[in-house]
């Protein structure tokens, strides 16, 4: 009998890196079931029109057979915090821990692979449970590259950074436009005041 196995996404950064590089599909290449804790999903997609948000939603909907959003208590807390305008920093990872614990409890033979961002994976406390393995975005891409399933991990990472830069520049220019428009309106108002005097 096959053991239950899940790839659990612990943070928004692997999703955002891959979506900006138009490479979310690489997550499915190994053919492993992917679990995204609700708090990670919400953090990545809650702002409509935010970079990559719509694509992530579409991608999940297109692969519901392979990708699952996992509800957690932390996710409920996250919702409450969002309603109250409080910080939700770090909740994605806590939700991933909850997702992992629930999954391992569900079956003593269950095994999980946690997907982390690269710089964070090095500084984690040691994972002692033999049923839990770790992979970073970079390690994941390197394995795909070694298997000739992608051309180059560096190319994907470069693409994500370049796309991020373009998005940020667009955001800045639209903020500039709004600011300029506000200033224009203000000046117009002042001129009208002067005319009335």
């Amino acid at each position, binding site marked *: 009998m096959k053991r239950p196995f899940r790839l659990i996404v612990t943070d928004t950064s692997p999703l955002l890196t891959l979506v900006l590089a138009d490479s979310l599909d690489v997550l499915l290449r190994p053919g492993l079931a992917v679990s995204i804790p609700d708090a990670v999903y919400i953090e990545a997609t809650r702002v409509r029109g935010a970079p990559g948000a719509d694509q992530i939603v579409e991608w999940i909907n297109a692969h519901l057979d392979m990708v699952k959003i996992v509800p957690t208590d932390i996710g409920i807390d996250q919702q409450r915090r969002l309603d109250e305008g409080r910080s939700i920093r*770090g909740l994605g990872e806590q939700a991933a821990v909850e997702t992992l614990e629930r999954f391992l409890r569900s079956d003593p033979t269950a095994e999980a692979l946690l997907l982390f961002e690269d710089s964070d994976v090095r500084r984690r406390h040691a994972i002692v449970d033999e049923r*839990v*393995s770790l992979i970073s975005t970079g390690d994941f891409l390197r*394995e795909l590259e070694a298997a000739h*399933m992608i051309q180059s991990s560096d190319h994907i*990472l470069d693409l994500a950074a370049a796309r991020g830069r373009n998005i940020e520049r667009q955001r800045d220019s639209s903020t500039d436009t709004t600011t300029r428009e506000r200033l224009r309106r203000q000046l117009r108002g002042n001129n009208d005041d002067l005319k009335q005097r």
Partner: protein
Amino acid sequence: MTESDREKLIRQYAAGEITWTALRERGFEDYVQVLAALGELGLRPPIAPMDGPNVAARERGRAIIREALRARR
């Protein structure tokens, strides 16, 4: 945070000296901002060297992916 502080942090991050969690604690709101700042400087997200307390778990992880990819060929 000044622009030069931001740039310094991003360079440290790209060099693997500080973590994404640390960037978040110092004012980066989301990872898109990090990617954008890397892109502005012509840098890319770091790939972690195989060291630290979780090497065994990471090696297991890579082996799992390798095996899964092989099985799908």
